[in-house]
């Protein structure tokens, strides 16, 4: 196994790149992301199709692989419509604002270790900044402007609602996302993505920081507006959400941004928690697995696993209600990540100042105290169970001894006149008593 390079090694390595090499890297990343987007659309449709027991697109090209290319070309040639009430400049800028940051975020993602390209030693990464992780966060926070402005500039209510939701959603989930990264940074001692990958040489952070990983994974889905958190474009509530009024290439740009964002955050999750381009366990026994061009394979394999989970979630979970979604973010994810960061930081300090034996003793004492305290808590009295309504075929039915209450007097006088007129058609039954109540009270009570 080759020795781990010191922090900042890749940074200096990449800083030496000649201009043509940087240009090649930019071009490759751009083309790669376009191709991955086309692939992802096909992949999503195929996988969801399999989950719903239908073939999915299988007609154009081998396995239907060219379907998304055909769709994209068709989209580009469609009529570009701009609503009369739209704000011209902002309506045009919004899709661009949502696409560009999605691509920029890829500049800091390490795809592989040191390689030789045309005799030039470099790393498979466009640039390595000492604050690489922050670049990803900054890009996602700029990307939201695209969505928010698109909704506002369309000049129609549904997109505006979608963009308001999106603004609130992304601000909330970015907090959880940032907090989950803190623990990783604490352990790796660097914000640089290449250094974080180097720091996972001994073991991936998913094993060391499982809580951070779960929180990152959940807020990653919220951050990319994907099901079950795709509230800004909830079809059942907001038609299309923020992109309702968009068509042709502008719509295609939003589509592109969504998929690139998905790939970006999957790649970031791979980098932060799954060891980046490092080979998984049985393969890592082979010394050459982490050298040369092989790591590209491991990296994209892990990223594809995340992307599959994205599709899996979409095929499985129904969309969350907005208040449930906000409650999950603010009342569960953020407090848990705060506690977790405090715990990790405390452990880090203890590790540097105490020996393992001392930590075990203190931890054991704390555990015993906690268990003792838990035993002191009195048992909760069992709640009084009301008799459940009898259930026939999983649906509650009225009790068998249902007595129909008499019609109230006030109503009887008013109804009496008409009842004489139509004695024959009046069905008398269980419904009579129930509906004698004030009719307006029923539905409104049920709705609250």
């Amino acid at each position, binding site marked *: 196994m080759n020795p781990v390079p010191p922090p900042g090694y890749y940074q200096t390595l990449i*800083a030496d790149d000649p201009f043509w090499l*940087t240009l090649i890297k*930019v071009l490759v990343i751009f083309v790669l992301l376009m191709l991955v987007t086309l692939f992802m659309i096909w992949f999503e449709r195929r996988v969801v199709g399999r989950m719903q027991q239908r073939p999915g697109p299988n007609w154009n090209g081998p396995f239907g692989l060219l379907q998304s290319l055909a769709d994209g070309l068709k989209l580009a040639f469609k009529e570009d419509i701009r609503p009369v009430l739209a*704000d011209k400049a*902002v309506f045009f800028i919004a899709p661009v604002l949502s696409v560009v940051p999605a691509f*920029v975020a890829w*500049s*800091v993602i390490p795809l592989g270790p040191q390689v030789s390209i045309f005799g030039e030693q470099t790393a498979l990464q*466009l*640039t390595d*900044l*000492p*604050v690489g992780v*922050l*670049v990803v*966060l*900054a890009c996602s*926070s*700029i990307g*939201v*402007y695209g969505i*928010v*402005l698109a*909704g*506002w500039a369309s000049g129609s209510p549904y997109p*505006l609602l979608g*963009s*308001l939701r999106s*603004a609130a959603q*992304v*601000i909330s989930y*970015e907090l959880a996302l940032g907090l989950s990264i803190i623990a990783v940074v604490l352990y790796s001692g660097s*914000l640089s993505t290449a250094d974080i990958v180097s720091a996972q040489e001994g073991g991936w952070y998913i094993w060391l920081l499982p809580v951070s990983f779960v929180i990152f994974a959940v807020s990653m889905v919220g951050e990319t507006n994907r099901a079950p958190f795709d509230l800004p474009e909830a079809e059942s509530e907001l038609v299309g959400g923020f992109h309702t009024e968009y068509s042709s290439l502008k719509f295609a740009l939003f589509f592109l941004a969504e998929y690139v964002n998905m790939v970006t955050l999957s790649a970031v999750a791979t980098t932060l928690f799954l060891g980046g381009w490092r080979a998984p366990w049985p393969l890592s026994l082979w010394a050459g697995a982490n050298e040369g061009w092989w790591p590209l394979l491991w990296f994209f394999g892990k990223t594809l696993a995340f992307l599959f989970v994205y599709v899996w979630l979409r095929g499985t979970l129904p969309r969350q209600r907005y208040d449930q979604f906000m409650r999950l973010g603010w009342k569960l994810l953020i407090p848990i990540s705060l506690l977790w960061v405090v715990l990790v930081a405390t452990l880090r300090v203890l590790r540097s100042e105490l020996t393992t034996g001392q930590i075990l003793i203190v931890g054991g004492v704390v555990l015993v105290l906690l268990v003792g305290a838990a035993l002191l808590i009195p048992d909760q009295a069992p709640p009084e169970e*009301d008799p459940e*309504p009898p259930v026939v075929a999983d649906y*509650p*039915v009225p009790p068998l001894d249902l007595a129909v209450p008499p019609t109230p007097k006030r*109503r009887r006088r*008013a*109804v*009496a*006149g*008409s*009842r004489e007129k*139509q004695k*024959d*058609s*009046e*069905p008398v*039954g269980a*419904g*009579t008593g129930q*509906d*004698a109540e004030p*009719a307006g*009270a029923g*539905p409104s*009570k*049920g709705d*609250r």
Partner: protein
Amino acid sequence: MSALLASAAPMTGGGEMSTGESVVFWILGPVALAGGLGMIFSRNAVHSALWLVLTMLSLGVLYMVQQAPFLGFTQIIVYTGAIMMLFVFVLMMVGRDASDSVVEVLRGQRLAAAVLGVGLGGLAVAAVAETLTTVGPVGLGPGYGPEARGNVQALGTSIFRDYLLPFELTSALLITAAVGAMVYTFAGQARRKQASQRERVVERLRGPLAGYGSRSGPGVFATADSVATPALLPDGSVAPASLSQIIESTRRERLDADIADVQSQSGPAGEVDARALRGGDGDGHGAGSTHDRLSEGEHEGEGAR
């Protein structure tokens, strides 16, 4: 692109300005200035906010080029990503056509604002001029700090070791402000208990208003929810709108031929076997329901008219 520029700019520790840095400055300086001017002169509030976003982004990139990547990205994340997003959020809630009133509410406000603005500008120019002439740049580049580990680590050491107490005081102040805002928001509102979905279902099915199936709309006096029962108006008469048109049209238009057919088969009129009606296409299961509808429709016709 910003990341590219930051990495392309060579790490200089001193005060001299590299070519890349000056190119970036002469591009971003005018852009930032244009953003500021655009913010002031825009008619639309959201456009003003967007111009300000442009200025902030330019400032962030300028920080990066000046060997302060952490500050630059924090500027973008915090100011552009969070604070300006909140501004835009509020402005969008206000409405897209809301514009400022140009009526001067406070007497002499514009004059005072002009004087103070010029004074502030003078102060800023004087401060910058002083900085440019007498104070030299210190602590840029990766070689800075106690262990020479670069900008980010040095910043961390400063904030969390040297100036820990002021930092904690600031955070306490911010938290107090946040809690105060929440207290003002929720003051005077009784805490409403949110019923769970199960509780609401149980209440609907078993509570005081228990009723199975859909209920009549508000303002309708009905003795049953059946479509066959006409609704009654407050004076007791039948509401014409509650009578189903479908039932009548079924009888008159689609079944006339059938009735004639049956009558011709069963002899003298009056002894019609209603169960022999086929109803439209004459499929098996439709016969019973057709019979029901027919008889109900006739009843209704009698009752209502």
